[in-house]
């Protein structure tokens, strides 16, 4: 236990020293000042926490239930798989700048916009690992079930659900800080109270103690959520991961056909949805409006040039940040498996990085990395890093103990075990992380650009909303979503090539 405590204590001391060193620049408060502020303003923070936590919890439950239902539907009815993945991806791509005001108009005052944004922040990162987990089943188990004359539904209930549990846990653990952050950002749409409201106030008032107290409380809550889910899961997940020896899967055809069908469905839902909600066309633009703005309107060329320039600026930060976050997440996960005591320091920091709102961390990152591209890249990498780390950690633990026993009996060292058993076992989870981080990193970069750096596509979207250029905003949303789909497809291609060798059951 003392070994686990040493890291955090050292981190706290370091934090205190750095914060005191930076006292004149108003970017970081030391832990001692946070403690004092918390004691003096306990009522205020507690009330705000109650509001935000309630919304985050509601969003967490709704978002994850939706993910479970969608995943079950995709497995029981495989034809719907592509449509569900496609639609889920597109909905997750929708930027907060665009959805926030619409949710506020649809729901009016009250907590619903915050709850919906929290739910939107979590459902996708649960859905993708879950879809992997539901396929992480030895084919002979399914054959056995089939030989008893049972159908897909029984397979889901008796075999697949059990196999998917570790992946579901990974999804829920990633969701805990995401839900909290989603609820906080949801408060930017005009909520009366909560941690997000206080954060805006503290940042503008240059109240560093208040800013970092809010960040510390948000982190603590997210950490409790993460550990709580982990603890419940540890009691439930007693079973050893199965050895999966499956025949290589046949290649599926008709990719373009399904893509066209998904595109048609999305456009239909979009158009009909706006009509059903009876939203004013001044700010709620339909598919035809966007087509008009991008293809027919006299200023279509201007719109394209604005969008392309902004996208170019964004890509410079996004692509390196995405890969850095991915690689770092996988490496730290491996390090934690090799040297478990690292987890005591690494996990709190990882959770903190994910649960502290970007507007709080951005000034610190900018101070350390400068105001140029490096700062934004780091912020994107931070957002990608945490889901990758969690997914990979769970993936590494999917190494079957029977195979590990074989390794042990041949006296294979930890590094050998990692290279030959754990990393191959991790690959499905890693690629799930790589896929779900495509839209997540795009979302991250737009939020960073909107709230912190003020350039690129995120800033363009915020600007277009503030000057009521909703044609431009919706066009940007469509283009960004399409690019997400392309990025997702590219990662999927790489994944298929790799998993065909290491985890063919995923391609079935």
């Amino acid at each position, binding site marked *: 236990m003392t070994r686990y405590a040493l890291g955090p204590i050292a981190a706290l001391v370091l934090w205190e020293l750095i914060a005191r060193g930076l006292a*004149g*620049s*108003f*970017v970081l408060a030391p832990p001692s000042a946070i403690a004092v502020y918390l004691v003096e303003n306990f009522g*205020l923070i507690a*009330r*705000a926490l109650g*509001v935000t936590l309630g919304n985050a919890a509601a969003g967490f439950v709704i978002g994850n239930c939706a993910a479970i239902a969608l995943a079950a539907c995709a497995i029981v009815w495989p034809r719907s798989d592509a449509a569900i993945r496609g639609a889920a991806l597109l909905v997750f791509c929708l930027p*907060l*700048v665009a959805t*926030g*005001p*619409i949710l*506020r*108009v649809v729901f*009016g*005052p009250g907590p619903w916009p915050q709850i919906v944004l929290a739910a939107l922040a979590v459902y996708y990162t649960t859905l993708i690992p879950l879809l992997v987990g539901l396929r992480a089943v030895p084919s002979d188990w399914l054959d056995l079930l089939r030989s008893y004359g049972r159908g897909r539904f029984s397979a889901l209930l008796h075999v697949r659900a059990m196999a998917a549990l570790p992946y579901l846990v990974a999804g829920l653990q990633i969701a805990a800080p995401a839900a909290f952050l989603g609820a906080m*950002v949801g*408060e*930017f*749409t*005009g*909520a*009366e*109270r909560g941690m997000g*409201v*206080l954060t*805006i*106030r*503290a*940042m*503008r*008032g*240059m*109240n560093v103690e*208040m800013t970092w107290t809010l960040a510390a409380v948000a982190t603590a809550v997210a950490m409790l959520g993460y550990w709580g889910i982990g603890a419940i899961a540890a009691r439930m997940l007693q079973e050893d991961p199965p050895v999966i020896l499956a025949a290589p899967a046949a290649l599926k055809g008709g990719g373009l056909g399904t893509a066209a069908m998904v595109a048609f469905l999305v456009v239909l839902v979009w158009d009909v949805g706006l009509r059903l909600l009876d*939203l*004013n066309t*001044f*700010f709620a633009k339909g598919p035809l409006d966007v087509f008009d703005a991008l293809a027919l309107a006299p200023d279509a060329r201007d719109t394209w040039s604005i969008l392309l320039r902004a996208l170019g600026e964004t890509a410079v930060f996004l692509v390196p940040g995405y890969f850095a976050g991915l690689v770092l997440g996988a490496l730290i996960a491996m390090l934690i498996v090799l040297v478990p005591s690292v987890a005591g320091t690494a996990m709190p920091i990882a959770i903190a990085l994910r649960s502290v709102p970007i*507007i709080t961390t*951005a*000034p610190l990152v900018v*101070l350390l990395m400068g*105001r140029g591209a490096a700062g934004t890249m780091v912020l994107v990498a931070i957002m990608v890093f945490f889901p990758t780390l969690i997914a990979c950690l769970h993936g590494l633990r999917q190494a079957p103990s029977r195979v590990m026993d074989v390794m042990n009996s041949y006296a294979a060292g930890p590094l050998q075990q990692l290279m030959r058993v754990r990393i191959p076992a991790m690959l499905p989870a890693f690629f799930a992380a790589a896929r779900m981080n495509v839209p997540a990193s795009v979302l991250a970069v737009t939020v960073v650009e909107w*709230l*912190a*750096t*003020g*350039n690129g596509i995120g*800033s363009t979207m*915020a*600007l277009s*909303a*503030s*000057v*009521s*250029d*909703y*044609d431009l905003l919706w066009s940007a949303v469509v283009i960004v979503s399409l690019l997400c789909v392309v990025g997702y497809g590219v990662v999927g291609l790489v994944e298929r090539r790799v998993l065909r060798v290491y985890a063919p059951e995923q391609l079935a």
Partner: protein
Amino acid sequence: MTQVSKLTRRSVLATGAAALGATTLGQPAWAQAKANLQLSWLHSTQFAGSYIALKRGYYEGLEVALQQGGPNAPVEPPVVSGTALIGISAADYTAAAVQEGAPFKILGVAMQNNPFAIASLAGNPVNEPADLVGKRIGMALTNTPVLQALCTLNGVDINAIEIVPTQYSPQPLVAGDVDCLLCWATDLPVAMTIQGVDNVTMLMADYGYAVHSQTYIATEDSLTNRRADILALMAGEVKGWGDYRADTDAATQLTLDMFPDAGLDADTQRLQAARQVPLMFSELTDANGFGWWTDDTVAANIETLGLLGRTVTADLWDRSILEEIHGA
């Protein structure tokens, strides 16, 4: 505008009664009409006049709810959709929305002088636009047209200023990343003063930047069909802001009492409330009443808005509500 001002007292009463009938449909006859006022930002003394009106019952015959704004809460959508009867906007945002097809009118101008300012540290001050040459200014890139307009109005070459995209916070200035900030005179400079950072504020309105701010906007449809409600709401605003001016400290105290969960700092709010007064009240409002404008101020606005790339005409402003309230 001419058509609206030709309305007789009788027709106003008639449409007002029709609007009341429409809004109270399905409610008991004695129920008050309801209306939302969409604020442009988080609760603070920035809107204290409205809090006074609410607390002291100045919105006669109307049950008003004040909807808070925020970083991701543009004012225009709720007003266009009718969720809010009146919104707090600014002439530049309203002009942009009208260009995009929103049927808005400006009914009143709470901030006669635009609150945009250049804030700098006392040791390296920007006292006038010419001082901007060679300086690094921290601002959202989205505000580049604002800086461009200031430069054009004062013959300063914008290329001689280095624009650094920053988030809306005094921190980059205090940390020395930039030499000055483009911000509101009533928020970031106040925060610095409260934190003990000696700073200088140059109000852009003093250098020709004429854009009405904290303007009351409503749709043409509401102006016709809910005129009585709009009159009641605006009359309450006029009375509330009158009380505010008489005692900004009392207005601050009321704000703090009404929003204990908003994390408001008493000293910051008191200073902000006081600094807001010269932006909101002038010889013009002394002579004609709160929210007023003249053809001259509108002409100056149209010119500045033109520099910002917004083409508007004088009929964006509709003074008929204020004229009725102030009895002009």
